[in-house]
């Protein structure tokens, strides 16, 4: 309250003492509104990122914390000791390259599968009449109300060789030896798609529900069969939702650790698992940090390219 700070201060006075000096500094109301998220990103993203980047450039050491300081200061001279060996090491050992490729591949295939499964679901929800639509949306986000870990564990119970699925198939006589499903790449795909499907459905739903029915009617009226209408009208107009949904599945799936750990086998070597191993088992923080930085670059670069392509397409 202005009254508490300066008794009798009128609104123009308040303006003179607060907003006006800020405005002189080039801070209008608009910049102030943007300032909050900028500070947020700075504190919770950029600074941690710089810390990790710093660690990735240091020498591992048996100490607390387990890495050498980046430089020394002998009172007169600052010696920076940047160690790029951690990055070189990542290139040396094919394990890391394989893990990156496998992670990206798994994340990509999972996102594509989630898109194929999520699109019809989002479409159906968006086309449903009102009371049912809300119910269906609720069902989509319902799984979030139980622990993610618990749900992935539950899949173990389904996929085990003596799990629900195998028991059922054997009992009905469809198979007589249990299928190996747990600890396979299939289980990892299944886990990722299952977990991240809502993130695909929600942005797709948001674009599809805005789609004007009369555009679909116009397309049909001009001679387009339903499939042609889908590819020429519905899909292009829902592209923002497709890209958002794809990214929301693809990006976190690259770094996914829990799902490959619980459902994957010894050879599902995803980068999240490697990171975990370096950090906790080997206690090699610098290499773990280098792994994390490279992963970030790998994720951010395609994302930026896509954003750019999108912006260019929109400008046309």
């Amino acid at each position, binding site marked *: 309250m202005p009254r508490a700070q300066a008794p009798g201060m009128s609104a123009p006075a308040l303006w003179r003492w607060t907003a006006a000096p800020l405005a002189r500094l080039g801070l209008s109301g608009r910049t102030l509104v943007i300032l909050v998220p900028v500070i947020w990103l700075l504190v919770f993203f950029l600074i941690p990122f710089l810390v990790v980047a710093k660690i990735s450039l240091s020498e591992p050491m048996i100490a607390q914390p387990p890495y050498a300081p980046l430089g020394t200061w002998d009172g007169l001279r600052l010696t920076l000791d940047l160690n790029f060996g951690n990055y070189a090491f990542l290139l040396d050992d094919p394990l890391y390259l394989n893990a990156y490729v496998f992670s990206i591949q798994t994340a990509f295939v999972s996102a594509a599968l989630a898109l194929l499964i999520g699109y019809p679901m989002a479409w159906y929800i968006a086309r449903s009449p009102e009371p049912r639509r809300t119910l269906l949306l609720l069902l989509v986000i319902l799984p979030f109300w139980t622990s993610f870990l618990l749900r992935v564990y539950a899949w173990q119970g389904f996929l085990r060789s003596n799990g629900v699925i195998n028991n059922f198939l054997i009992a009905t006589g469809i198979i007589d030896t249990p299928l190996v499903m747990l600890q396979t790449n299939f289980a990892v795909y299944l886990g990722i798609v299952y977990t991240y499907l809502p993130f695909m459905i929600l942005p797709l739903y948001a674009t599809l529900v805005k789609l004007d029915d009369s555009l679909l009617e*116009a397309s*049909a009226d001009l001679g387009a069969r339903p499939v042609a209408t889908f590819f*020429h009208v519905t899909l*292009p107009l829902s592209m923002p939702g497709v890209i958002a949904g794809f990214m929301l599945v693809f990006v976190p799936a690259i770094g996914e650790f829990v799902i490959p750990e619980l459902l994957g086998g010894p050879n599902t070597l995803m980068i999240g698992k490697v990171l975990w191993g370096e950090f906790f088992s080997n206690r090699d923080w610098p290499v773990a940090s280098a792994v994390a930085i490279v992963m970030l670059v790998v994720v951010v670069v395609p994302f930026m390219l896509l954003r750019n392509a999108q912006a260019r397409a929109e400008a046309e």
Partner: protein
Amino acid sequence: MTSQVAATLQKPWLDQAENPFVRIHRVTKKFGDFIAVHDVSIDIYKGELFCLLGGSGCGKSTLLRMLAGFEEPSGGRIEIDGQDMAGFAPYDRPTNMMFQSYALFPHMSVERNVAYGLLREGVSRAEARDRTAEMLKMVQLERFAGRKPHQLSGGQRQRVALARSLVKRPKLLLLDEPLGALDKKLREETQFELIRIQESLGVTFIIVTHDQEEAMTLASRIGVMNDGEIVQVGEPVEIYEYPKSRFVADFVGSVNILEGRVTEDEANFIRLGCPDIGAEIHVGHGFSCTLNQTLWYAIRPEKIRLTRERPEGRHNNAKGVVEEVAYLGNLSIYRVRLDSGRVIRATKANLSRHEDGAITWDDPVWVSWDDTAGVVLSA
């Protein structure tokens, strides 16, 4: 005889032998319990420019949407070019529709919007490009071919929508309030453009409108709808001069409706006792009615003459005082309160720029009209 042949060529609905191009037969549409279109039958002939006219919510769009195939009739049948349309999807019908909202594809340029229908039909790219260019030229949008719909003005969008529905040269073109968003001048230009297109391409048009002036300008025939039903179908002159009911008389143009009882019923005239104007109305033609039956007499404002003196030799006249004058430029509208208390509307063309002694506020006047000027209505 030859003139009659010419007349039926121009007016196929007068020719008993002619087959209608669109036959709407006892069509009904229900949404749940609500009857949006009730037992509508209309025959529309090739090359017609047929206007569906009616107030908001009377079922015009619903009827049009059934023709386009977006809604299935709950009852009755629709035939286009002799073929029953039941079960035909919109993409299998020989119709194109121009939507009330235009429904232009926002992600496509003007050119791609217009070419869309041709490409779906399997027309080659080169031909589609030529025909699109030709159509854009016709609606004077060549310069805007590369723009997206959101970069156009309302009137330009409307012309894109028109071009898109015309480019496939459909046998039947359905236009839902096509000119609603345009200003008066652009609307008039486009009306004449529509008539020109219709004459040069020979397409059959069905146009929905709630603007009676637009219907009068455009239509070969008008179908007036009320509450889901067709109340009258006829040529503009017929609808205007010979309305069949008070609703039609009132909806199309401005009218004075007087209630009266039959006091004399002769072969070549009838007389109505009309307390509204405190006099008897003499109708110069026979009408099948009975004595004392209640009838209505509809007389248009422009058919009423205003004079300062009691007119001689006119059967129908009444005395009153000018209550209000509205000057509209080309004509003036007078509201005259008769001695009976009833207000009558009359219009007078402003033939000269300045008139000495013109009738104005509070002047005592006589209103009068010919004994054939009005219409007797029994409903």
